[in-house]
């Protein structure tokens, strides 16, 4: 027992006189009915059952058409949403009808937002497990989440302008409030389903969705060197929240967790403090914690045909058809032994990666975006070593398959031995992990020189359903209603 009273001093609990109410998942349907009866429903989210205002579903629908739709939606209700929108618009350079205000990424479209969306600077990802696996909870959760995501991605508090607190002092506010006054910061929230949502570890159907298990939603094999922590891996549902403001991303996961209480609980969550990939040519290639540019050869939003070939699920039929226009998300928590890495001579570092540290040019010569020449000879062998990272990971060496990488640097403090617990939270979106991830990772794990400096500590594979096309829908609907 190394308990030193002087150290850990938990905060005193609030007494009966100043009780801090614990979070309140006001976004649940029964609550709306509740609130409607007591007459405290904010106008912009008034439940249609109460016979006033706009229903949440209709609101979502109205939001669907982007900025213009938003204005229409607000005009139709003619209420509290409008002033809030004005202030939001004020922050944008020159909002015009037909385009979303700056900093707002629409949650609507054939594909979910947060995949080809230019990679935001921050990420908070969380995986949830259903508490009592059943379809009713799953559907209500996805509906409530979709509604909340609709608000948050518009930069609004969940529940509308009064969502983070109005005149009602007796209830816990619907929204936790820490994002009030911040812009939407390009928030996107992307959800995916883990294999465990469909079948248990023995392959037995869990919720009645077993027949819809995508064939590609496999159990990832054990890769050489994997030291996976079960409590940080897997999960029934994953939520990826990305934003340019860390507070906005964390707010999203916090509120979605709160809404889920009683239906699903967080299995693990991970914060990424800086993007390591560019998903658009408008973005410069960022660096990972090894100090190297990462994702130079990444797929970009500007390559729709390539995305069609390598990222989006297409041509699925029958019980698998629900996943068309979706994708697969591979998540790997890759701890980097950066202290060891930092001591390596620059030559060794570049040899491991296969690129120069300064500009990120392949060791075969040229500039960052020059195609590597894997055949080029140099003194004593190949210019780019066969077991360098770029050689093993490059599409040229992987039957031309490509990934859309969307990873983040993470640092979870230190490990007690004076070393940073830091590394790369690798995220990739692929059409089929069996062809687009596993073969490459096998090779990397077995041979990559860089493997000496990394350790995979967590893993997740999720089927990402298609986007939300408009009115009345919810994320994941195609899975439940196909």
């Amino acid at each position, binding site marked *: 027992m190394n*308990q030193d009273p*002087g150290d850990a001093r*938990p905060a005193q609990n609030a*007494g*009966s006189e100043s009780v801090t109410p614990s*979070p*309140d998942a006001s976004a649940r349907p029964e609550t709306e009915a509740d609130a409607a009866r007591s007459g405290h429903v904010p106008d912009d989210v008034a439940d249609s059952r109460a016979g006033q205002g706009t229903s949440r579903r209709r609101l979502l629908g109205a939001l669907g058409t982007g900025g213009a739709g938003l204005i229409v939606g607000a005009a139709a209700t003619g209420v509290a949403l409008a002033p809030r929108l004005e202030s939001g618009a004020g922050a944008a350079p020159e909002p015009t009808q037909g385009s979303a205000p700056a900093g707002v990424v629409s949650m609507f479209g054939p594909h979910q937002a947060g995949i080809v969306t230019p990679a935001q600077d921050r990420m908070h990802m969380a995986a949830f497990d259903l508490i009592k696996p059943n379809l009713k909870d799953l559907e209500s959760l996805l509906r409530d989440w979709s509604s909340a995501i609709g608000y948050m991605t518009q930069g609004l508090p969940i529940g509308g302008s009064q969502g983070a607190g109005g005149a009602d002092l007796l*209830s*816990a506010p619907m929204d936790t409030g820490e994002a009030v006054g911040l812009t939407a910061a390009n928030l996107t929230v992307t959800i995916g389903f883990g294999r465990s949502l469909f079948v248990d570890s023995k392959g037995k159907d869990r919720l009645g969705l077993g027949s819809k298990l995508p064939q590609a939603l496999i159990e990832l094999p054990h890769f050489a060197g994997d030291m996976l922590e079960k409590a940080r891996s897997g999960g029934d549902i994953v939520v990826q929240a990305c934003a340019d403001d860390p507070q906005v991303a964390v707010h999203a996961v916090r509120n979605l967790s709160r809404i889920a209480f*009683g239906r699903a609980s967080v299995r693990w969550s991970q914060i990424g403090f800086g993007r390591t990939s560019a998903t658009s040519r408008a973005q410069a290639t960022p660096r990972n914690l090894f100090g190297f540019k990462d994702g130079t050869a990444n797929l970009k939003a500007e390559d729709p045909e390539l995305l069609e070939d390598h990222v989006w699920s297409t041509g699925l039929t029958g019980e698998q058809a629900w996943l068309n226009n979706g994708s697969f998300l591979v998540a790997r928590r890759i701890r980097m032994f950066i202290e060891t890495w930092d001591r390596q001579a620059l030559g060794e570092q570049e040899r491991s990666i296969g690129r120069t540290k300064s500009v990120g040019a392949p060791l075969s010569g040229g500039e960052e975006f020059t195609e590597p020449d894997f055949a080029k000879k140099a003194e004593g062998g190949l210019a780019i070593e066969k077991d360098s990272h770029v050689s093993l990971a490059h599409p040229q060496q992987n039957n031309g398959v490509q990934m859309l990488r969307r990873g983040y640097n993470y640092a979870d403090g230190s490990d007690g031995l004076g070393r940073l617990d830091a590394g790369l939270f690798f995220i990739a979106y692929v059409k089929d992990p069996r062809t687009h991830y596993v073969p490459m990772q096998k090779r990397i794990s077995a041979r990559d020189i860089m493997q000496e400096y990394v350790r995979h500590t967590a893993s997740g594979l999720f089927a990402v359903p298609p986007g939300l096309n408009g009115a009345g829908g919810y994320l994941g609907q195609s899975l439940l209603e196909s």
Partner: protein
Amino acid sequence: MKKSLLAPVGVVAVAALLLTGCTDNTKTSAAAASSSDGVITVSESETECKVGAAEAPSGQVTFRITNTGSKVNEFELLAADGLRILGELENIGPGVTRDLQMQVEPGDYQVACVPGMIGAGTRLPFKISDSGAKVEVSADRAQLQKDAVTGYTSYVKAQSAQLLTGTQEFVKAFKAGDEAKAKELYAKTRTHFERIEPVAESFGDLDPAMDLRLPDVESGTEWTGWHRAERDLWPDKGYKAMTEAERKKIGDKLMSDTQKLYDLVYSSDFKIDVNTIGNGAMGLMDEVAATKVTGEEEFYSRTDLYDFASNVDGARVAFETLEPLLKNSGDDELIAQLKEKFTAVQTLLAKYKDGEGYVSYDKLTKDQVKELADSVNALSEPLSKLTKAAVKVK
């Protein structure tokens, strides 16, 4: 939802008539056990508790209580869980006969004679059979709020009375150095404190004096109370045991603080309102979430699950006390939700029952702790709506 796990709906009527419906008289009663007019005679003293019948038909029920002893006495009708007091007569003087009259719905109950008005008293099972008679429920919300306050006040008093006698025994064993006995009584006695902890907290210095954990003690201040004794009973490595004089000092202080709590609760100045009851329920569950489910509360004895269960008991009693108000305002959905979630937590806790008590916290796996934490979150969400639903005018 298992109905048997829930408190009978009868609370409504019972609490409603608790004060208004009691007739007080000083007649000496007839000897008949249960006369034709449904009167159940009770005679109680320091040593006996004789209830003329073990069963009565639902509807109007009258207990006619005679104190045959020489000390002040008390009579209670309790819910089957033995926690919630549905009706009571306090301060029945020696030789005095008084009537406790109320409307009761069918179900299982307990009755208790509490001589001296301390401790749990003598308890007997009591059944109300279904007579088909309709039990009246007050539609007057202000009255229902008053009744809730009365009911909860009785409950708080009863728990502090049991805490008092329990603590007497514990302190006696602790001071005498009877470690085994003190350890056996420790968690069991604290149960009564944990059930009403927010009330103790409302008395300023009393809660810190009685229940502070080591990490909460500011440097330079003295550490007293239950957890001080806990560490001495379950010493960690390097801990220096208390001397007999120190044990006496800590024991006496705990005893006098417990007496103070009892006196405050029994004083006529003790006032609570519906807000306090609802927020108290939240406070108890917040306690569970903050220090019980994490195993921080009973760091040395590892009896955290006792406290956990007691906090949940207390929150449930508060909810059930306010239930008539929720019913009155049509918050049936919230009632159903809370019942379901309370039952879920309690069913889960029951898995860790060990005899009269609970298994040691360190026997729980990480997954089991997570499961408990999830159930607490699931309950606390709807529970945060309780106060608002109860205080609203309608």
